[in-house]
């Protein structure tokens, strides 16, 4: 018997009496008895917080792959970056955590200004002027980008590089069943998109990833030219950390940028809540999904912030809205603004650089392990795919026994064969190195790999 209810028994009695009632039952008397729950829930009885904590200790204890137990080389859109105590403390402030959507701007300037700062950073990282206030994650961001392209072109053919993360593609395929979009997946050859392998004629969107999910940086000018030729929207899913040093989506000519914002202050969290980043050109502003915060003035002429261009949104436009999104990932957006403020201009470049340095060192060392082969000859950034002489899933389990989460089995991401690979997916492993991995950990990784593939 535990809860967070304030009323004493006397207060309950007096409140019921005020209503002319004598029991809680009177409050529910108008509900037809045929549908009433008889006999209570089939749920365990309530427990005190310490008792529930003990139950949760059994869950946490059964997770063998925590950061405390294994050094993490797994990425694939979820990265183990430094999240310092200052970011956790500020992002955990209960004024941000326990607020609702900023519908009353007079008492929501804190969240509104933080979102405005977040939007500014997204615009700079994407090289596109119109960001939104966040989406659920990058995968659903892709869905919104496709919907925007469908609205902008009145066409339904979406040409997507197989270098786009397999889960993002899977989510797009799910929602295409409702929108009727036709998804055409352009395969990878040697790690880069072979756009010629598919018919792009009449495309509404050309979607590329930068770097792609295998870590490879593709020359996006080819995809951009295709988009121009087909008068399609050019959608670029980019790693926002890489944007600290690589060309931005905007510099490559993107009409829409989507990205996964988890690297900015959000823990691995078993995949959520994460942060969908979204930005577009001014031409598409009326089709922007979700909320956007704008600067304005209050009645006394002071700077103030407010959600704006509201006529696009579901609560006003209903069935004609640009998206159905209401709740988004604001707290993660606020946290990203804090984390980026902590990193600053130089720190962002340094994270990106350190990731690239560690990844390239590990890659070179791994290719010296006999039987380990490159999947692509193309340049990569902070993540790479390698083909093992062994089954990648089994290799990852064996490496875990030696204290290393070695990476992601690509077959687990793709669910089997996939147009992104020319080799057997079962043997391919995706490996990343973040700024948190030491030389000692990386060298240990190489030794473990050598031992595992040759045992």
């Amino acid at each position, binding site marked *: 018997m535990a809860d967070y209810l304030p009323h004493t028994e006397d207060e309950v009695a007096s409140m019921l009496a005020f209503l002319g009632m004598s029991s809680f039952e009177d409050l529910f008397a108008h509900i037809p008895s045929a549908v009433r729950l008889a006999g209570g829930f089939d749920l365990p009885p309530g427990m005190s917080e310490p008792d529930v904590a003990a139950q949760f200790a059994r869950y946490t204890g059964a997770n063998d792959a925590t950061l405390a137990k294994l050094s993490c080389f797994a990425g694939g859109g979820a990265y183990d970056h430094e999240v310092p105590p200052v970011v956790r403390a500020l992002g955990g402030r209960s004024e941000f955590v326990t607020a609702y959507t900023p519908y009353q701007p007079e008492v929501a300037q804190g969240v509104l200004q933080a979102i405005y700062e977040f939007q500014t950073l997204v615009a700079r990282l994407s090289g596109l002027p119109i960001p939104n206030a966040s989406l659920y994650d990058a995968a659903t961001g892709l869905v919104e980008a496709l919907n925007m392209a469908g609205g902008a072109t009145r066409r339904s053919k979406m040409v997507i590089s197989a270098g786009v993360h397999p889960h993002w593609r899977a989510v797009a395929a799910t929602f295409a069943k409702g929108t009727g979009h036709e998804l055409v997946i352009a395969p990878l050859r040697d790690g880069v998109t072979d756009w010629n392998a598919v018919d792009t004629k009449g495309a509404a969107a050309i979607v590329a990833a930068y770097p792609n999910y295998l870590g490879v940086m593709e020359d996006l000018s080819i995809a951009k030219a295709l988009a121009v030729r087909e008068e399609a929207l050019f959608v670029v899913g980019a790693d926002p950390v890489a944007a600290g040093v690589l060309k931005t989506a905007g510099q490559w000519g993107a009409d829409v940028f989507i990205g996964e914002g988890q690297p900015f202050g959000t823990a691995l969290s078993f995949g959520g809540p994460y942060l969908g980043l979204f930005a577009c050109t001014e031409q598409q502003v009326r089709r922007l999904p979700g909320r956007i915060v704008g600067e304005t003035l*209050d009645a006394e002429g002071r700077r103030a912030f407010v959600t704006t261009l509201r006529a696009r949104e579901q609560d006003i436009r209903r069935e004609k809205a640009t998206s159905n999104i209401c709740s988004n990932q604001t707290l993660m957006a606020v946290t990203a603004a804090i984390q980026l403020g902590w990193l600053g201009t130089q720190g962002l470049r340094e994270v990106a650089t350190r990731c690239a340095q560690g990844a390239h060192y590990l890659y070179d060392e791994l290719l010296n392990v006999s039987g380990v082969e490159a999947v692509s000859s193309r340049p990569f950034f902070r993540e790479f795919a390698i083909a093992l002489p062994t089954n990648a899933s089994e290799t990852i389990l064996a490496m875990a026994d030696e204290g290393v989460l070695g990476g992601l089995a690509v077959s687990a991401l793709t669910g089997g064969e996939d147009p992104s690979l020319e080799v057997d997916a079962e043997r391919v492993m995706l490996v990343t190195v973040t700024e948190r991995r030491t030389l000692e950990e990386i060298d240990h990784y190489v030794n473990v790999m050598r031992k595992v593939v040759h045992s």
Partner: protein
Amino acid sequence: MTFAGGRAASAPLMGRESEPTLFELSVPGRKAYQFRTTGVANTSLRDLIPAEHLSDEVVDVAEVSERDLVAHFTRLSHRQFSVDLGMYPLGSCTMKYNPKFCDAVAGDPGLNGVHPGTPAVLCQGWLALLTALEERLCAITGMSAATLQPAAGAAGELTGLLLMRAYHESRGDVRTRVLIPDSAHGTNPASVTLGGYEVTTIPSNDRGLVDLAALKSALGPDVAGIMLTNPNTVGLFEEEITEIAAAVHDVGGLLYYDGANLNAIVGVVRPGDMGFDIVHMNLHKTFATPHGGGGPGAGPVAVAARLAPFLPGPKPARVDGRYDWVTPEHSIGRVHGWHGNALVLARALAYIDVHGGDGLTRVAQHAVLNANWLRHRLRDLLPAAYDRVNMHECTLSATKLKAAYGVRGLDVAKALLEEGFHAPTVYFPLIVDEALMFEPTETESLQTLEALAEALERIVERAQVDPEALRHAPKTTPVSRVDEALAARRLRPTADAR
């Protein structure tokens, strides 16, 4: 005098000047970051990355000290109303107290330090946790199986509609329309469009409920289903729900339960027992996970047995004595990049397990008690649109105030901010004129409810004496009313837009 714990009027806001932006605080060369010493060689990026990929421009972030960073975001937090600060009776949003315990659970490195791509055998604890939550949610809703992937209520709605579509298509049954009452949340019609269906709007009757005759005349073999919120958005229970369910099922349609108002009925009625086939829950409402200033939420979808084979996958399940990921036979596919908003799911399970079945029933009882007490307490001041027993929220109307003094519902809401309360939901549902929808939730005390009522009494008094002043409220908040037209006309979504 008894003081109300939920009134924020004593909050010490330090002056009313604008807070500079992060960018205005920036000084080139200042830094806050520190990284681990790794020993990895500091190779030049130009030796690793081909020049054509490197940007010539430096992405300007902001350069502040850690001390300035802390001061900036702390000051911003002081310009923000929150549940922790005071009562937040925002109708339809269930802004109840968010237990700190549940946050602590989610902050455990044994949960948040797990990569989502970890092989199942290495994250058995997470899979056990998610499986336990699925079981609890099915017990609460009277359903057979659930997906935990949808990241919020609207994502749950669209998932539910795609399940509806997959179910009908599997039977070779082509249907084109989904029915929605005119009182529904805007996400419902928006989701229906994205699900590839057309919306047919069903009017409400003079009791604020679905007009059964109108519903029946709108039904036909082309109807895929109906989306209902029960209690509805006015806060009233759809008393003819069994008749509605029978009529929709008779034409082969499915019933979708929008769980926005589930807080009113946990332990009292289960959607499954009312005849619903698909149910989404807003864990950030009913199960007290914090709203985060607009998100994250979590919108699991539970379904009747006949729809279980279509659920999104992979989903956690117990197989041969251990947990694994399993994809249902006719799965519609993934609806989230990974497994859903996992840490939100963990918080909700902790909340459910603290309460247990009996505790959750008390939650609904007290939520409904508070909303009815408030409606009755305010009956002479701001009469309810439908003056009878309501559920967890009451929809009042400022129509009389407007007629008498020219003071609108919005003015009342803004004046409440000065009184140290968050505003109710205004102008929703659309079927009520000058709607003020109050949802006090079960965690507000009698003293707080009374303080809210007295604040509204003072506001109505002010409306009689000086209505003009009310039209300019609030004046004691960090900013006064903002120019929304200017924001839209001269769009400045970033510090670089000029």
